[in-house]
């Protein structure tokens, strides 16, 4: 079983240095691209592979690139979204800390494809170690002639900068990321216009996830058919899956796209801790709907999880066990989302704190049936389109599914006038 993204990451956890990366074929894809392919051909190749964005939305990467106008003057930008702040998600961190040059090579190729001359790595504030590693990697890449003017002697130049955020979940949304990078408030932008046309500083811009960009060198080297062959399903490639929660071996693994939840949970994460039973799971991070044991055989790809009523998201599962209160669990999530709301649009800014307060009231035994109804109303009204961006709709996914699957827990809080779970 191939693990293209992670196979070279040393087990020690130390970052793969430039020389080591080159020794395992690093930057050969870039060399090949600059020698053999036109920018358009690079995009076509990515399109052929049907690589889907690993940040959560699953949009075709090649398609995204193809929207960038190629006949314009002025700067264009390529940005790696390394602002990994989805609760329960730590897959990009692995790549950032373990194989920084793989990301850089992917970014340089992507920049070539859209003819960008400036690239940024927008990194989560808390990833201090990754930031150090990336700083060194960028410096090394400059020194080796992979960045700067006349890259590998060709008529292509690219500058790269690392930007560390200040710790706002909102910055993971690509347009809010752009505003933040411009030094403005991290509020999202309306689309259209899309960043591909009017992005950073109003110029054509591509924002891709770290995992997505890290795949580019491999697709360049081995092609679309190879990429598709890695997968169990129609969504090609491997995927870094993660499991957190009260399992025996929480962690992250690069596995073929479409592995089942059961395999992930039981084989890789080692099953539930002793004495605990599996109750439900957020399959793709905090902003995805709960699935339950009825869904354990769902294939973890974009189509499969969606068919089960949730989203693949970032592919990193958060497991709920039978001794953790689902109301408290969701309250914790809504607290996070309410706090991370940027405050731009009304439903999110005012609605999320309301749900948070209701959930807290339920936990404290002060909840009512009217409160439950209010939660239901919010899950309906804070839907896509009603709010300015996807933050609030994402925040409603665990809530609406918790109300569906764990309704008896909510009602018990009201009847008992207290939380029935033991609190620590």
């Amino acid at each position, binding site marked *: 079983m191939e693990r293209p993204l992670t196979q070279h990451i040393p087990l020690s956890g130390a970052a793969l240095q430039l020389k080591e990366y080159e020794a395992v074929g690093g930057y050969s894809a870039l060399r090949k691209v600059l020698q053999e392919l036109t920018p358009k051909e690079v995009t076509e190749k990515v399109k052929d592979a049907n690589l889907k964005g690993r940040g959560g939305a699953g949009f075709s990467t090649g398609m995204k690139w193809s929207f960038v106008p190629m006949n314009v003057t002025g700067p264009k930008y390529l940005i790696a979204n390394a602002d990994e702040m989805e609760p329960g998600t730590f897959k990009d961190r692995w790549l950032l800390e373990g194989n920084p040059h793989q990301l850089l090579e992917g970014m340089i190729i992507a920049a070539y494809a859209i003819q960008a001359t400036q690239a940024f790595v927008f990194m989560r504030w808390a990833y201090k170690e990754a930031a150090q590693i990336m700083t060194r990697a960028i410096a090394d890449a400059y020194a080796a002639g992979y960045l700067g003017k006349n890259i590998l002697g060709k008529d292509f130049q690219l500058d790269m900068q690392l930007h560390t955020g200040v710790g706002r979940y909102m910055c993971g949304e690509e347009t809010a990321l752009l505003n933040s990078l411009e030094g403005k408030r991290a509020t999202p932008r309306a689309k259209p216009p899309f960043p591909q046309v009017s992005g950073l*500083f109003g110029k054509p811009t591509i924002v891709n996830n770290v995992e997505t960009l890290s795949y580019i060198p491999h697709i360049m080297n081995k092609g679309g058919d190879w990429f598709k062959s890695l997968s169990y399903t129609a969504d090609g490639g491997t995927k870094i899956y993660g499991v957190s929660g009260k399992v025996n071996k929480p962690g992250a693994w690069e596995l073929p796209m479409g592995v089942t939840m059961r395999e992930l949970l039981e084989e890789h994460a080692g099953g539930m801790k002793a004495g605990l039973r599996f109750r439900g799971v957020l399959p793709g991070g905090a902003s995805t709907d709960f699935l339950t044991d009825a869904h354990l055989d769902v294939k973890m790809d974009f189509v499969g999880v969606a068919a089960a009523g949730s989203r693949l998201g970032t592919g990193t599962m958060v497991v709920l066990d039978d001794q953790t209160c689902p109301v408290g669990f969701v309250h914790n999530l809504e607290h996070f989302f309410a706090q991370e709301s940027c405050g731009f649009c009304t439903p999110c800014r005012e609605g*999320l704190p309301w749900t948070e307060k209701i959930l807290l009231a339920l936990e404290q035994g002060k909840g009512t049936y009217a409160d439950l109804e209010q939660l239901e109303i919010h899950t309906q009204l804070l839907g896509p*389109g009603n709010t300015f961006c996807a933050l609030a709709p994402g925040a409603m996914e665990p809530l609406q599914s918790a109300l569906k699957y764990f309704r008896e827990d909510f009602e018990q809080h009201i009847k008992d006038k207290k939380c029935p779970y033991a609190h620590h």
Partner: protein
Amino acid sequence: MPIINIDNKNYEVKEGKNLLEACLSLGLNLPYFCWHPALGAVGACRQCAVKVFKDADDTKGRIIMSCMEPVKDQLRMSIDDKDARNFREHVIGWLMTNHPHDCAVCDEGGACHLQDMTVMTGHSYRDYHFTKRTYNNQYLGPFLNHEMNRCIQCYRCVRFYKDFAGGKDLDVFAAHNHVYFGRQQDGILESEFSGNLAEICPTGVFTDKTLKQHYTRKWDLTSAASVCQGCGLGCNILAGERYGAVRQITNRFNAAVNGYFLCDRGRYGYEFVNSDQRIKTPMVHHGPAEQSNGIPVLEHVHHRMVPGKTIGIGSPRASLESNAVLKELVGADNFYLGVSAADHDLVSLSLRLLRQGPVRAASLQDAAAADVVLILGEDVTNTAPMLALSVRQAVRRIPVAAAQQQVHLAAWQDAAIREAVQEDKGPLFILSMQETKLDEIAQGAWHTAPDNIARIGYAVSHLLNDTIPEVTGMSEQGRDIAATIAKTLKSAAHPLIIAGYGGGSEAILKSAANVAWALHDLGIDAMLSFTVPECNSMGLEMLDGHRLESAVERALNNGADTAIVLENDLYRRLNQHSADLFFNNIKSVILLDHLYNTTAEKATVILPAGTFAESDGTLVNNEGRAQRFFQVFTPTTAVQESWRWLLQVAAVSGHAVLSSLQHLDDVVKFIAATYPQFDGITTLTPDAHFRLAGQKVPREPHRYSGRTAMLANENVSEPKPAEDEDTALSFTMEGYRGEPPSSMIPFFWQPGWNSVQAVNKYQVETGGPLHDGNAGKRLIEPNVNGHTPFYTEVPEPYLPLKEHLLLVPCYHIFGSEELSIHTPGIAARMPAPYLLLHSEDAKRFQVTEGHLLHFMDNGHHYTLPVIINDTLQQGVAGIPVGLPGMQIAEAPQLIKV
């Protein structure tokens, strides 16, 4: 035009609009907060949600925000859809979770967009039972009250203050449900346009602090359409009164003039009307006239009007009517313009240039649409503030157009356009005596002496038309500046050249005309904007009269016994020496004015003249636009319009023409018949006989309260309301309730729309002109036959002289205008007198910042503290104009230190 289907009915709508604009323009009710016609759409509040459907078979549809969705032919939408209504109701529910529900004690109450929208959505039951968040409020200066707890986070305030008006000290802080709109710390809001926050804010976060001093609900105000007295631009205002005091000024929308906004001088400068310095009764020899019925005092006046020895001194801050009646009363030979020599020279030249040339005077709306702007010698923010706001829009034209084309954006997509435009600015070039606020958005700003500014103007015009002589002796830098400006102007479609009284230089005006005319000759649609100092400077100049210095001379030569001074303090027009000379050689001074001033001290007879709030009249603004202002209330004192006093004087004197005139319409007709240049003023507004459905237009809204109780402490029987014989307005609640002609609109109100947002209902389309057209009529139109010869008298360059300084005027929005400084808040914003000096000059005269510097001007000694300003050219010194207690200094002039 596209056809859209709204709730199963087809409507023809305008291309390029968004659905919210389309719905509102159709007269449909759809609630909104963050969208504003002047600011565009950002989609923040989510209040204007509607359903759109794929086609006639789609029954599910999807909710979208109507402000963010462009009109598209055959689009199907529903306002009335159950889900859309439910969502809109919940948006109010969310907004209300933290709103304090303090309507009863909120200044916005009764004129609150949030109240209106709450009622419109039907939200009436509170589901939220948790605690509310609370904020600290800030001290924001004398103009605005801050009550953040009421905030519904629509972001309009920052979008106006920062994005539209270029302010820097108001922003949004924090995140999630803690977002805070205010300053980084307590302090006076710096923008000259801060008062607009009170109208932009849909609820009571920013409210008018001067109104708070004498608070009245909107529904209890007696209001009338009026015209701002603060400068020469003639912004349209609404003035509201109760109990004989003007309570507040709000914007009166006029698409061609001020649009939705006012400057802070205009909004807050009204309190002189309520000043305790007001002259309320006729006075003779500084005592009250013996009888109150007015007859004896008129006799006093009559006796002093010696034929051939009586002169009249007009006023640029008095109405056309008052000036014209005075001119007729004393005779054209005896009528003098009550303006300083410099102002007269500049305004009369401006008038000539507009009449003699083919280039039109720009309205504020035209100015905002200019693609290239050249400012010669003016600090526009201080001399004509709203023009500065227009210039701030004009510099966005080219980059916005480019962005729209590149990214395919509609004009209303504000956030996306600002993103695409970034900090790009279209060409604005400023040549001024010192740094001005607009410099920050200029492509080039240079500071030098007035004559040097004129030289650059001439040099630009030479580059546009080589029959204009070359300016010799230019520095290389000067040549470069001229070349850059000329090249950019040549590429413009609608360039605007701004000059005016602030530069204090006729040469600048002439060079500006040269530039504009040369552009016109190249087939470019150039515009001119000449600022003028006062609200009727242009009207007075058009009426024509002799120079004020001639009146002084005549008095010295015993040619005048009596002077009738109209709404004027001659100590602001002449230096103290000349003014003293004048009064010492005049036997009787008859003064008509509002406030007791230095001239009043010299007056034999004083007649209490109505301010704009107690008067009907006409003003002509800097572009030659005549506009009518209406009396707001009837004073209980002897105060009345100057023109009415003068007609009464004329009646006593048996004046052949004037004694047959009685009402406003008579005077207006007389003026139009006597002076062809004022022919248009009879059609400014319907005459006094105009009726709608047989009724007059009431100044009081139908909810006006307490009418029978207001004066009950004095007399339980309600007095008969005053009759208005001059206009088709009434001083009552009774009358026609529909929409009056736009020139007469006393307040904006429509069922369900109690706030200023009701103006939507009076417009042809949102942001467009009022149904009845924009009020006012332009009296000066360009000369279709081309222009008089180009000016060729290029001034010599100004070079600093030893021992000398060139004194140049510095105007202040707060301080340089005579009446507005009687508003305590404006007085508080006024600078103390100073002398602006370059640091090298300070060294030369061995002074530092704060030191007092002595100099003499026409025999008057000045001692002023020095302020260092290195943006001045060396050898040039700035002196503030018009500050109270300061003698007028003739600037520019060379002084010896």
